């Protein structure tokens, strides 16, 4: 499974930045606002090509993981431009190679739509976070508007072949993994959300 996921994102790395350019432009302010809450030693899940690093506050110690080595190779430039310490590690979000309670903060950005077992990935985040450490999530989810949700359900079998699922219940998954949601903001409709959670 991990190998198939890695290969999918290796392939996607070639066109990923072009695909998300407009999303970055439209959601950049909201991401920067959410990531302003980052602190101390931070874990970033699924860094991709590193296009989110510019939204991080300066001066942090960030460890950014991704399952795709090709993605991480593209992320080296943005990582070196970050005004702080930012290390890149190739790792599976469902089996993090870090000690328990070793991070002060974790962030995701359109990550949990792509992790095959998102609850397991979130449990791993919970394991490596210190008590009361915030988990900041910028994610897209299944709409509660039935006509929109139905189209997301129909689109997902196709989108999953090239990239993410479009219909995940990420707020529910965060709670199922043992987090308490402190804040939830709708960024676009009720599809794109910014969340802040802490281990329950």
């Amino acid at each position, binding site marked *: 499974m991990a190998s198939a996921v890695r290969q999918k994102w290796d392939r996607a790395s070639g066109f990923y930045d072009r*695909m998300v350019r407009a999303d970055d432009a*439209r959601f950049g302010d909201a991401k920067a606002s959410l990531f302003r809450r980052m602190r101390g030693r931070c874990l970033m899940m699924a860094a991709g090509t590193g296009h989110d690093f510019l939204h991080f506050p300066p001066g942090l110690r960030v460890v950014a993981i991704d399952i795709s080595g090709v993605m991480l190779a593209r992320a080296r430039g943005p990582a070196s431009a970050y005004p702080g310490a930012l290390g890149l590690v190739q790792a599976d979000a469902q089996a993090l190679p870090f000690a328990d309670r070793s991070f002060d903060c974790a962030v995701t950005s359109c990550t949990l739509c792509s992790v095959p077992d998102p609850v397991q990935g979130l449990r791993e985040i919970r394991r490596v976070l210190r008590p009361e450490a915030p988990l900041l999530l910028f994610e897209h989810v299944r709409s509660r508007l039935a006509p*929109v949700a139905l*189209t997301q359900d129909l689109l997902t079998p*196709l989108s999953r072949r090239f990239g993410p699922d479009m219909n995940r219940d990420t707020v529910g998954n965060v709670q199922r993994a043992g987090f308490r949601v*402190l*804040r939830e903001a709708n*960024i676009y409709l009720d599809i794109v959300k910014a969340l*802040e959670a802490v281990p329950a």
Partner: protein
Amino acid sequence: MALEATQVTRPRGPSRAYLVGDYAAGAATALAAALPIHALVDTGWDIVLAMLVGVGIGTLAHLAVLAVAGPLVGFFQVMAPGGVIGMYGGMLFGMRDSMQAASWPQTVAVAVLFGLVVVACLDLYDRALRRSQEAG
């Protein structure tokens, strides 16, 4: 579990260029659905068959426009209204073409109007969510 009111900042709204892009993508999705449906479905078709064909063509039109316009305008802003326009609009266009002999200009005009109205409705809903969030 009750969620606390949130103060996470969200964008004030799309820039004018993106807003124009949202509406253009909606109109393009509706046209990409309506024109092939009008060419294929004739009056006298079984209405259920016409609806199903319309849904299929409309969904394909949505995917095609999403692939082109998504990277330019934003995937979510094209996907949400485009899915509604393609699937439900395609169904309506198929029904219409099985029941009445619409002209090509009428087909184009109604399709563009339908696309713009759906985008406007979702834009208004998005703004309403933003207002309630800011108030809450």
